[in-house]
């Protein structure tokens, strides 16, 4: 952080900009390299962990009545008779070409994830946007009158929302919005294009994911704003007689951004985790349900494929959050 802060004070603007861009690029490259390395380690752990579970993909894909010789043939077909490190190396070397291997049932992993991954991204991204907007609105509203009635209500509601797990939210939504009132479709039915047949099928899954995360992030926003409230420049702004909402938006909020960005970045991981539960409950065709089935079937290439794609997305989001935090902190330095 210090190098960029230093370049901001550089006297020659043109040279400074170029320098800054290079520094940022280097920084991004470094972060990307670190994250990629982390992902490789994670994938190695996945391969090893599946190996440690009892049973293997050949067992899971076999039918009752197969003899030991049949099972051995199946194991050979799936390459499970080769050492773990060799299978891992094979999978990793095919990865740069976009080849994620073959599932235990003989389908290409990229085919199995081609529709579910975008579907989950749409689900998680929609939930994320709703989380960002509503937590900022609620947090700012609560912070506008600290200790007021609005603040207390938001505080209680957000704690409650975060404390309720996704499946409770899902089941409640399902009962009220679908089975009792008939307003929304109860389950997701997928069309020939691999997407949910109607957009209304997204509403409940998105809400089920967004509600708990909004609860958490509202508390983060509110807390960060409270921290900023006692900062000298905010107190000065108040003493200057600026209207409270101006102080809140112009002086408190910018300072709260780093903490808020970190909170939201954490949410992306939780959104993916929650997607496993929510997708199952609403029959949403995403990677969460693929992952759950793959673990049960000890389908290592498929599990690795899901971990790899989800890991890449989460890494990208964390990187973005890093950059936001960096940029804002840099600006204040």
């Amino acid at each position, binding site marked *: 952080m210090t190098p960029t802060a230093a370049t901001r004070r550089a006297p020659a603007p043109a040279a400074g900009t170029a320098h800054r861009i290079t520094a940022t690029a280097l920084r991004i490259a470094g972060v990307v390299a670190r994250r990629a390395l982390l992902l490789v380690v994670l994938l190695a752990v996945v391969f090893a962990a599946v190996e440690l579970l009892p049973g293997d993909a050949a067992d899971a894909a076999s039918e009752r009545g197969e003899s030991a010789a049949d099972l051995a043939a199946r194991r050979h077909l799936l390459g499970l008779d080769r050492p773990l490190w060799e299978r891992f190396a094979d999978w990793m070397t095919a990865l740069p070409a976009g080849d994620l291997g073959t599932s235990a049932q003989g389908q290409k992993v990229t085919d199995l994830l081609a529709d579910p991954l975008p579907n989950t991204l749409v689900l998680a991204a929609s939930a994320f946007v709703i989380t960002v907007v509503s937590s900022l609105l609620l947090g700012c509203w609560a912070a506008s009158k600290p200790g007021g009635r609005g603040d207390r209500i938001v505080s209680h509601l957000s704690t409650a929302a975060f404390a309720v797990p996704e499946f409770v939210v899902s089941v409640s939504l399902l009962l009220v919005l679908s089975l009792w009132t008939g307003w929304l479709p*109860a389950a997701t039915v997928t069309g020939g294009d691999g997407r949910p047949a109607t957009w209304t099928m997204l509403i409940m899954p998105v809400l089920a994911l967004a509600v708990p995360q909004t609860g958490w992030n509202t508390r983060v926003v509110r807390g960060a704003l409270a921290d900023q409230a006692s900062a000298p420049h905010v107190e000065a702004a108040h003493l200057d007689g600026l209207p409270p909402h101006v102080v809140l938006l112009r002086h408190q909020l910018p300072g709260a951004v780093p903490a808020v960005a970190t909170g939201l970045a954490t949410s992306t991981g939780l959104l993916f985790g929650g997607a496993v539960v929510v997708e199952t409950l609403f029959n949403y065709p995403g990677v969460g349900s693929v992952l759950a089935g793959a673990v049960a079937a000890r389908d290592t290439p498929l599990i690795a494929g899901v971990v790899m794609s989800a890991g890449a997305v989460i890494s990208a989001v964390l990187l973005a959050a890093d950059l936001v935090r960096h940029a804002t902190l840099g600006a204040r330095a």
Partner: protein
Amino acid sequence: MGVTRRQLLRAGTGVSAAGLLAACGGGSDGSGATAGSGGADRPRTGGTLRVGALGHGSAITRDPHGTQANESDYLILALVFDTLTVPGAAKNTAPRLAASWESSQDLRTWTFRIAEGAVFHDGTPVTAEDVVWSLQRLRRTPSGAARLPGIQVGNISARDDGTVVVVSDYANADFPLMTRFSSFVLKKGTSDADIARAPGTGPFTLDWFRGGNARLVRNDRWYGPAVHLDAIEVTMFETPQAMANALLAGQIDLASNAGAVAARTARSRADVQVLRRPDDMAMPIVMRTAADSPFADRRVREAIRLVVDREAMVKQVLSGYGTVANDILGTGDPRYAKDIPQRGRDLVRARKLLRDAGFDLSRTYELVTTEDISGLAESATLFADQAREAGIKVEVVKQESGAFWDRTWKSGDFYTSYWGTNDSVVFFASKTMVSEAGQNEAAWHDTGFDAAYREVIGSDDPKRRAAALTALQRIEHDRSGYLLWGMADGIDLAASKVRNLPKLPGYGRVQLEGVWLR
């Protein structure tokens, strides 16, 4: 949504009666294998049936000869492709692509005649060469030896354009039964790469398939009876709960194999039919009979069978959606021995048998179970409670599925198992009870049983075969390693407009070619 809630409610008024009739299994309408049709109604042609079937995105397979872990995949394959034979009602094996079959005197050579007028969806006629190639392809898969037992690749051949000859390594009176499940016929030479778009011969052609979901349209050239539906849309559901919710909300017309919990939820809805397919799932308790097992003494096994309260099990574990069984597997077999007296609960006799056998009542016995299918773990828990009343201490151990199949199945002393094909006594005898059976779950070796079994599959005299089959069931009832307390119904939920739904257990649930919409 194609049908509004109000339409469903209106249509629902006359339905519960039809649903009840279907549940009672009235098969007098001639269709035999299907239910849900009001006698006065004439089938109406047209419409799209929206079906929900269970499956996981991770387990999708498109290969008719692959392992179909997903019910949704199997449903789609079974409507697009034809097997040689299919499950039947009056006889458990009914014709499909094979119009007829006969065996040689020694019951080793089986000759199948291909149905007149059978053509692939692209118009080319089905030849014996296609059938031979398909059976050989099936035999070469890792599960080939289990699916076509006793058949070598080289012993499948074509006699002429319309006749296929299969020679078994041993006499097997029930071989045609083995072709019901996966003898799907493809065109000779279909490559693995083309398998997903390969033309079938079935009542429906594939319009599209994506991510486990599919749309099928009627094949007007099908050689079988008239198909009434224009199209079938299959939606894959990961859980029975989500599937039942979709049905209750009117998003699908049929929830295939939705289970007892869903049936309980739907029971109060007048606009939903709850269809029961009896003898769908067996959940026996397995007692290992080998010498080092606490259940080696047949008196102990008899006592355990006398301890269970079968009515209570059916009522509580299956929510009443099932029937009491008599420790003989294959309850749906038309030749099932109904005259063997039903075993009931008799704690006094059980205690005496245990005393006589010197069974150690101070020990706690572990009963291993899984949550693979709904009700299985509950059955173990309830049984443990009932055993306690007889002074036997049973502790239920729940294992994760992978661990169970890897470590307990076929080697544990005391565990729960489950079987989805229950319309053949011989099937179970050959798969799980005869001494050399590959899946002899209880490690049971009984010379009397083995002799009866060989008589059943090796005798060409129907009378002797029938007598041997009764003897076999009696021995199984008396001293096998199984406690079979009851049979779970297969349960489908359907909107009231759906008619002529499948009635048979197990894979009979995919027989949707006769369905029509009112």
